[in-house]
């Protein structure tokens, strides 16, 4: 279970949000909305442990994520809007490297399989340079298909995706929730995901 207690975030001399409280249970989905610059990305970066909070605490299974350190990272997958797809590497290489870095080794046939599922069939051996923006995002998201981490943090992942891809991502999230995982998604679009517990948090400007 993920608990956020009394969290506040300050960027420069602006307070983005303060006294934020919520918790996500296994199988739960949380959607973050709010206007541009309201601190959605900052919140996700604090939850995944990249940035420190000005005040408050994030707890995973009851323990502060600061004290868990690398143990926490075995449970978390974060996909930001800068998705880290390398132009010079082929689609398969990109997927194998990014999941390898996350601690899951994927064999080449497995990777090809997932890429086909993500609608990148026939482009597995193409350098990512030749993929369109939407395809690159599909490639970045295909990492979700191989990782078995309990908490997904997705930041504006639906941008530049077509309808079919949005449906694909939604089904991936659904699978994750069915397995008892959790997902926090920052997006303006409507999520068409059936979740046992769904919350929406709107960050004020």
């Amino acid at each position, binding site marked *: 279970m993920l608990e956020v207690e009394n969290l506040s975030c300050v960027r420069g001399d602006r307070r983005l949000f303060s006294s934020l409280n919520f918790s996500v249970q296994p199988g739960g989905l949380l959607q973050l909305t709010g206007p541009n610059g309201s601190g959605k990305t900052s919140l996700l970066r604090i939850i*995944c442990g*990249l940035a420190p909070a000005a005040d408050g605490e994030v707890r995973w299974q009851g323990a502060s994520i600061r004290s868990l350190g690398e143990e926490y990272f075995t449970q*978390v997958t974060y996909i930001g809007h*800068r998705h*880290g797809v390398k132009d010079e590497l082929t689609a398969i290489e990109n997927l*194998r490297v*990014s999941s390898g*870095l996350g601690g899951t080794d994927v064999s080449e046939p497995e990777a090809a399989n997932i890429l086909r599922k993500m609608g990148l069939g026939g482009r597995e051996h193409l350098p990512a340079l030749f993929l369109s923006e939407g395809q690159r995002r599909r490639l970045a998201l295909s990492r979700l298909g191989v990782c078995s981490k309990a908490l997904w943090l997705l930041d504006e992942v639906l941008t530049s995706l077509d309808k079919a891809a949005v449906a694909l991502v939604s089904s991936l999230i659904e699978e994750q929730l069915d397995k008892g995982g959790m997902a926090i998604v920052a997006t303006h679009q409507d999520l068409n995901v059936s979740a046992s517990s769904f919350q929406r948090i709107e960050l004020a400007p």
Partner: protein
Amino acid sequence: MFRWVVWRDLMLAWRRRADVLATLFFFVIVVSLFPLSMEPETRTLRTIAPGVVWVAALLASMLSLGRLFANDYTDGTLEQMLLTPQPLYLIVLGKVLAQWVVSEIPLVLIAPVVGVQFGLSQTTLIVLTISLLIGTPVLSLIGAIGAGLTLGLRGSGVLVSLLVLPLYIPVLIFGAGAVQSSITGENPLPHLELQGAALVLTLVFAPWATSAALRISLE
């Protein structure tokens, strides 16, 4: 995981061969300019050889520092690396190792060839190569700290030189010192041993300092 970092960086370097070759050519050209611009007297050339080759190696290694983390930083890969279950220390070590193999090893290999222009004896050329072999990893390790600290800053290229070049001085002194003593017929071993000590020291502390720098830069 460690091998993924190394494999990835080697692969990226292979696909961007031009960058690597540029560093190598820079080294060769800078070293070659000196014999061309001075009177071709063997004694003078021999005197300046250790300094010239080593200074050129320092400058060439500065060139590749910019690429160490900057690309991964802009496209978000570095964030992913910070969020891996393995210690950041290992990731930094892997990246530095790959950078050393790609940018410094070619330099070490070509050094005896360019050294011939200075009329160095065979023994001296061997000492030069060994001193570069021990010294260049230190350059990469120290450089990584600077690259990590200046990540995402404007004009980081100049800043990293100002930050890192002074820290290179001990390596330069012992490296050039080893070659110098080999030319004058003394024993170069003490210098090489001191270089080895510097290597061990930086191997332990530099990746750790770089990890801290990266965490700060990415906050």
